[in-house]
């Protein structure tokens, strides 16, 4: 054990030194509870104390999340999905933050935050239905506390702040009642921090002291652009522009992410206002299945990050602590296989939407032009359907 009072132990090869070369002095030290070799460190401010089952649950979440990624990529190749934005490499960030929310909290994700979705207990087939092109929304936001994915970069952030202002007005912060006090968390990427709306969101949250946590997954890339193209300084410094406290956390360390996010959510629920979290991580796969990362980044870079794989790190830790054994691994592998099987079978069974359903939800109340268009559509569809049937009949 190192001396906590002396500050966090610094691994000389810790990624922050390697990754913020532009202005290392400006970067705050990165919170780590597991060093890159999986050795548990303590931290003077950020700690978690988990039961063995809780630790194993984190591993399970990460393993299933990775499996979701692997299966979905395969499903995309088979034409079952139109597109897949992978989360490989970001499992610790997404699972750690996901596990920091409570039932009554509200989550505003981006489009790659599958771990955040799973953490809300949502059936992953809802995610697949979005990327299969069946649906823009997926799960039910009302019952899950999970807003739909937002594809317009940074556009979910201001609504998240507004939602948090609503929470404030409902008196659901600072009551001390753990089942009532609520917070909002919004996920976004490194690229998103360049959008004006992101800056507005940080500022509003700060002005109104809204109970919202800004969870930035700095995965080093916005499609083909490195984070240095977005900002000359570490991203957690964005928060300084509106005086918001910010934390830099090792995004490949699930314990550190959980600790930091929990603390920020607790602070928000208690009425302490917003926090910015930069989770320093890496997108190990392509941006999406449409992307070709070999055009813009080196295999060496990817290899270097593979060394920091968040699942391997955590697994090593659990093994070293004697919490994980072969039997447990086997059970987890079986669970993962069953999970994958469900995905593969389930995705094929997602029914195609009824075309006429597109007319149903544009407006809550009738819009005569839409109604007229629906009638036209139906008439034409029936007619051409009939023609098609006749044609088919004639041919048979």
């Amino acid at each position, binding site marked *: 054990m190192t001396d906590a009072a002396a500050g966090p132990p610094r691994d000389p090869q810790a990624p922050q030194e390697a990754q913020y070369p532009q202005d290392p002095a400006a970067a705050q030290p990165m919170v780590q509870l597991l060093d890159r070799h999986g050795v548990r460190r303590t931290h003077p401010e950020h700690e978690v104390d988990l039961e063995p089952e809780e630790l194993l649950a984190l591993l399970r979440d990460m393993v299933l999340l990775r499996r979701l990624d692997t299966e979905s990529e395969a499903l995309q190749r088979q034409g079952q999905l139109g597109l897949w934005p992978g989360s490989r490499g970001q499992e610790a960030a997404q699972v750690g933050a996901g596990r920091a929310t409570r039932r009554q909290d509200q989550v505003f994700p981006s489009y790659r935050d599958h771990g955040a979705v799973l953490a809300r207990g949502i059936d992953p087939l809802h995610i697949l239905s979005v990327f299969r092109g069946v649906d823009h929304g997926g799960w039910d936001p009302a019952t899950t506390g999970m807003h739909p994915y937002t594809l317009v970069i940074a556009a979910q952030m201001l*609504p998240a702040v507004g*939602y948090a202002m*609503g929470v404030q007005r409902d008196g659901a912060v600072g009551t001390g009642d753990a089942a009532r006090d609520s917070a909002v968390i919004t996920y976004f990427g490194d690229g998103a921090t360049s959008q004006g709306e992101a800056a*507005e969101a940080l500022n*509003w949250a700060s002005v109104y002291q809204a109970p919202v946590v800004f969870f930035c997954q700095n995965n080093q890339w916005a499609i083909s652009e490195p984070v240095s193209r977005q900002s000359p300084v570490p991203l957690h410094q964005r928060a300084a522009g509106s005086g918001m406290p910010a934390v830099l956390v090792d995004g490949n360390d699930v314990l550190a992410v959980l600790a930091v996010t929990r603390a920020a959510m607790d602070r928000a629920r208690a009425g302490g206002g917003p926090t910015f979290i930069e989770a320093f991580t890496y997108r190990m796969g392509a941006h999406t299945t449409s992307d070709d990362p070999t055009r813009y980044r080196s295999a060496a870079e990817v290899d270097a990050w593979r060394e920091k794989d968040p699942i391997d790190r955590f697994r090593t830790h659990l093994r070293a602590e004697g919490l994980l054994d072969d039997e447990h691994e086997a059970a987890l592998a079986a669970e993962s296989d069953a999970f994958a099987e469900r995905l593969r079978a389930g995705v094929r069974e997602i029914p195609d939407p009824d075309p006429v*359903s597109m007319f*149903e939800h544009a*407006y809550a109340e009738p819009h005569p032009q839409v109604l007229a268009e629906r009638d036209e559509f139906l008439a034409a569809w029936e007619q051409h359907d009939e023609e098609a049937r006749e044609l088919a009949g004639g041919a048979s």
Partner: protein
Amino acid sequence: MERMAIGKAINAGLRAAMERDPRVLLMGEDIGALGGVFRVTDGLQKDFGEDRVLDTPLAEAGIVGTAIGMALRGYRPVCEIQFNGFVFPAFNQITTQLAKLRARSRGRLSVPVVLRIPSGGGIGSVEHHSESPEALFAHTPGLRVVTPSSSHDAYWMVQQSIASADPVLFLEPERRYWEKGDVDVDLAPGQVAPLHRARVLREGSDATLVAYGPTVRLALDAAAAAAEDGTRLEVVDLRSISPLDVDTVARSVRRTGRLVVVQEAPVFFGAGAEIAARIQESCFYSLEAPVKRVGGYHLPYPAARVEEHYLPTVDRVLDAVEQALAA
């Protein structure tokens, strides 16, 4: 029956909505102590407090974006955009979020946000204060767009907009804020005309004038002037741009055979185009002359000292009527 200016009527309508429903709240720049640059929210912060009447940071995307979030939490935010030319920083939130969240979630999310925007010109103002952006919103599926032309409608339509489960762009005819009219404040809900119904304000048999918002008064003036020459013009106030009450317009055109649409926005790709397209289709055999459009030119709104030449005038409306009658 109470007599009040249009601006005051909106104020009274907001007050009534806020009294009725504690979830209604107002957001915008300078709407608190100042009461808004047009004083439309005058006195409301004093009476309802800073938690329900929010002076916001100077950021329109912020206003609309956070209003969406509040609506998702169950509130009914009414946002004031200070002037028509300043709605554009919020365009991304309006088009990609506000307009789409219901469809995107298959009806599971409601975003009953009202955006109040002073609209149109004619007040001798500097740049960006005199524009008429309704066509941009009408072309965006998921939004509703309405505009009152009288105190009575202002009072009721703002309340109906707030009550709507859909997002509504509520365009306020800037240069008519001070025009007074009677408001029947004692109507029961069922007695108020539906929000999206057009209204025939003056009957006539020779030609139909369709107008909305600030041009309704102009159309009425033109009809009065034409009457002196014995031409009887029917005047229809659209009240709603999306949806469009085409039936009311078509019924009128079937009787008059002639149609002139009057708007302040540039004619090119404006509301008059949609109306003309629909009426030439639904009234093909009744039309005795092509549908005419009178409106702004395809130019950035000009400086105040020429705006009278940019905006439609009684003369220009009557010229169009004359052409329609001559055809």
